């Protein structure tokens, strides 16, 4: 039969080790937020790369038909507009530091999530239609001299790829991104709510 004194001495003899320093703690807290920022930046970077690649086509390759130029033009403008929207969204979360201004950051994170939702729903379809239109114009000249089976393959692959992006990939990305941001919002709300109770 043990007494409470024994329990207390047992408790005190069990030394716990804090594995994080004050500096590491702040860095870690900021890292979660930076993760969302980094993904947003990578997204923008990917779009910029696409923009550059297609712009290079326009600059370095001579095209005879106006349809090709118009097609590439439509694609480039679509990518540019989408990239600008992505950048504006990025600025929303880049504006505040959670550890400095938690409430402002939290409300910005909610706006960012809503914007992302719009971007990958209504705006995405406008973007996809514009891109498809651009590709149709572009393929008009480009596929002209190719064999029929190659033409069919390229068009089929393009349709398949766009369908894949618009359905499975888009939904998976949206789901993952929503979960990540929901988790962050929940965590920061819990921290803020908890402190209001003090």
């Amino acid at each position, binding site marked *: *039969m*043990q*007494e*409470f004194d024994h*329990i*207390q001495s*047992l*408790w*005190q*003899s*069990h030394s*716990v080790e*804090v*594995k*994080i*320093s*004050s*500096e590491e*703690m*702040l860095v*870690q*807290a900021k890292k979660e937020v930076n993760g969302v920022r980094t993904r947003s930046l990578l997204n923008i970077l990917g779009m910029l790369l696409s923009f550059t690649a297609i712009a290079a086509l326009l600059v370095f390759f001579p095209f005879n038909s106006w349809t090709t130029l118009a097609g590439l033009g439509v694609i480039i403008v679509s990518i540019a507009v989408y990239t600008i929207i992505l950048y504006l969204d990025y600025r929303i979360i880049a504006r505040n530091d959670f*550890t400095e201004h*938690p409430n402002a950051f939290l409300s910005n994170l909610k706006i960012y999530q809503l914007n992302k939702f719009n971007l990958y729903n209504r705006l995405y379809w406008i973007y996809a239609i514009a891109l498809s239109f651009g590709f149709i114009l572009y393929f008009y000249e480009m596929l002209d001299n190719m064999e029929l089976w190659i033409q069919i393959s390229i068009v089929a692959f393009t349709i398949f790829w766009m369908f894949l992006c618009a359905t499975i990939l888009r939904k998976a990305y949206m789901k993952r991104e929503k979960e990540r941001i929901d988790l962050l919002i*929940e*965590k920061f709300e*819990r*921290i803020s*709510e*908890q*402190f209001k*109770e*003090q």
Partner: protein
Amino acid sequence: MEKKDQLFKQIFDTNSKKIFHLCYGYTGDEDSANDLLQETFLKVWQNLDKFRNKSLISTWIYRIAVNTCLTYLRSEKRQAKDELTENIIENRPEEFSEKNEQVALLYKSIAKLEENDRLIITMVLDELPYHEIAEISGISEGNLRVKIHRIKQKLTELYNQHARI
């Protein structure tokens, strides 16, 4: 800013171990305790300017930690505590010894207590003065003494029960 960082560092170094032990006692799980420690000190850092010296800074931090613990487990719907405390033994066979087994039994017994009681007894075990515990938990000192007496009895009973099994 540098002054604030330095002050925070000092506060963290002085209080983190006790707060971690409190969180560990409450969750019985090192990872969750780490999460709670981080949440607590993140909030301390953000609100350091608002601290008005009405109470001891340690009391203020304990209050944040206690509220963090209570809201954390409720919102996260964490794994049942029994399983977590059992993991203390199962996950670290190399550290297995009679003392470790007793420590694990202690955590298991604490886990059987009510959430608030768990936090109170953790502070008692860490020898916090009663008036401070009363301030942290928002209970009058008279009531707290009665409560602590009851929790001590309950914990001892639970520990002995587990020890017999």
